[in-house]
């Protein structure tokens, strides 16, 4: 008989070790599956590494992909800490991208409006649109007890159709499924913009969005680990009843956390259109909001670990675009998530086999 016994306090090295082991095991399983369907796993993996970290140019592209992942990953980690299952970062991202685009295309601002006005307005609009999209499931959960998993998921589809309406309809450029390219004033500064002074930077597309993401990470870390809010959030996540007795207004927290989570994802959408794509288009997100769920879990909800996980998944998304069949990255993500779940079980429990188990039971 095999038996699980709770560990008291797992040793500090165990969790990171098992996390790394889980990723390795997932890649091995992924390789076996790839080989079974007739692919060449070694070639695929080497391709991913080369296409994501091979030289400074692709490394910069990896960071561009990691930027929205850090922000959406933080959005998920924040909500998950309170055991609020915000699966809607994808929709909040889309709304944020739309909100930022609305400032450029829908407000009728005069041509040549300076970046110093335009960029903050886009950030505000993106974060606000995302926050509204997070607020809806938050208020429904807090006031009516409506399951947030379903509402956030459904709002993803609504958000997608909303963006499609604008890029196919009012903002379509020449009948294509995309808007016109934004004016330069609406672009976030990129490394390549400094290429004249620092030749190393020329051609590099990493943009200021990465700085936003790192600032958000730092703020998130301080709030979670150094303030009363962070303490109360952890308390609510671990033991809602105890939190209620302690006089914490759980409902208000739910709404506020959902709105902040949505704002972070919305800012990710803004950063993507203003920093990387420079227009709104149908396929603006290759599933950043969904990958963010795995990132939050891989990071054990820790803000700095979200950054590390985002770079890994940024690499997978960047290199995965060229891998055929197209389902491979999603499949590997699924396998990684399962391996992480199992690793988590081994962190919390000790596996006991044989007679001792029978005696213990």
């Amino acid at each position, binding site marked *: 008989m095999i038996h699980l016994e709770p560990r008291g306090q797992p040793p500090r090295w165990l969790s990171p070790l098992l996390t790394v082991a889980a990723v390795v095991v997932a890649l091995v399983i992924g390789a076996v599956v790839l080989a079974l369907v007739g692919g060449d796993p070694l070639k695929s993996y080497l391709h991913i590494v080369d296409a994501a970290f091979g030289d400074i140019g692709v490394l910069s592209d990896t960071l561009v992909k990691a930027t929205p992942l850090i922000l959406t990953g933080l959005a998920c980690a924040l909500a998950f800490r309170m055991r609020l299952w915000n699966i809607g970062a994808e929709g909040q991202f889309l709304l944020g991208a739309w909100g930022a685009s609305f400032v450029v295309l829908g407000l009728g601002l005069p041509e040549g409006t300076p970046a110093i006005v335009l960029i903050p307005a886009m950030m505000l609009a993106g974060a606000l649109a995302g926050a509204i999209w997070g607020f809806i499931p938050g208020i429904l959960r807090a006031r009516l007890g409506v399951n947030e998993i379903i509402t956030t998921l459904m709002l993803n589809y609504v958000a997608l159709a909303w963006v499609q*309406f604008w890029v196919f309809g009012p903002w379509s450029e020449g009948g294509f499924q995309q808007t016109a390219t934004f004016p330069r004033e609406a672009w976030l500064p990129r490394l390549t913009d400094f290429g004249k002074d620092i030749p190393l930077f020329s051609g590099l597309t990493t943009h200021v969005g990465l700085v936003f993401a790192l600032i958000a990470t730092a703020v998130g870390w301080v709030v979670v680990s150094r303030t009363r809010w962070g303490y109360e959030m952890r308390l609510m996540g671990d033991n809602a009843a105890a939190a209620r007795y302690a006089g914490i207004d759980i409902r208000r927290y739910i709404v506020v956390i959902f709105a902040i989570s949505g704002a972070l994802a919305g800012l990710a959408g803004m950063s993507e259109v203003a920093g990387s794509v420079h227009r709104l288009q149908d396929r603006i997100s290759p599933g950043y909001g969904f990958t963010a769920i795995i990132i939050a879990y891989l990071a054990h909800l820790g803000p700095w670990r979200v950054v590390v996980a985002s770079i890994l998944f940024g690499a997978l998304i960047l290199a995965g675009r060229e891998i055929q069949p197209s389902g491979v990255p999603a499949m590997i993500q699924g396998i990684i998530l399962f391996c992480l779940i199992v690793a988590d079980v081994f962190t919390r429990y000790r596996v006991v086999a044989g007679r001792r188990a029978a005696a213990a039971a």
Partner: protein
Amino acid sequence: MIDLTLILAAGVASGTILLFAAVGEIFAERAGVLNLGVEGMMLMGAVAGFSGNPWIGLLLAMLAGAALSLIHAVVTIHLRAEQVISGLALTFLGSGVARVLGDGLSSAGSIETLPRLTIPLLSQVPLLGPILFRDQSILTYVGFVLVPVAWYWIDRTRPGLNLRAVGERPAAADAQGVDVVRVRYAYVLVGGLLAGLAGATITLAISPGWFGDQTVAGRGWIAVGLVIFAQWSPIRAAVGAYLFGAIFRFILDLQGVKSLLGFDNPFQAGRSATFFLEMLPYAFVVLVVIVGSREALRRRVGAPAALGIPYVRGERGA
């Protein structure tokens, strides 16, 4: 002009997809296991339908759904992992593997579908006959039979009583000699089997063709939402499923019409306003879940008490 009978008949057919998935999820959740992997299991079922022979495809689809749900069962029942995360992982895995397997499959509808039947006498019944019993896929009729059977099984039989006990008071069920682990495994597998069947219903009966993720297009998630609206009752799930089936069908048909009540139809295929139509089912799910949640609050009933909580003998549930 739109023929209402034809739309409703097609709505019933399309509702059958949601029906199988929702009833499957009801079985799993009634046993206390939340499985959010329905979308992934349906995609696996949908792709397994493409195996040449439709009957073999049907069988493979159910096996594929069950195989995927077995992973969820092991991880959540034996390893006591968080059911929400495991279910999400199942969706990623299912959709990824399905897309890998479906690579290169055609969207043109080249596969053979399951036979369609008209029931001799019943189809003559005024109003309902042509909607329910004329030229429907054999799977639609399976759906008609499944609803009362599922209701009877859950509410009126001994195994059904055990099922409910395991979902509500697993410790009490255990004390009565019910094998909680075995019951949970069994119904999670039944849920997977039905989700696979739901996926196969898309490709083998309703709209043959492979469109990647868009083959299922969120219907797995809609089914999960329907379970809440249905208050975990197969009969209410059927009502919801056919209603949503009709909505999906209506949206599809409306796009093929040139003029509407004498006006130019703004929702014709290819026009941007159609995207507002496409939002409808998803927005409607939100409404329906709000209704379901309010009702649950008011009547103080709702989800099975042990839903989402792993069972360990001798430990008190959280």
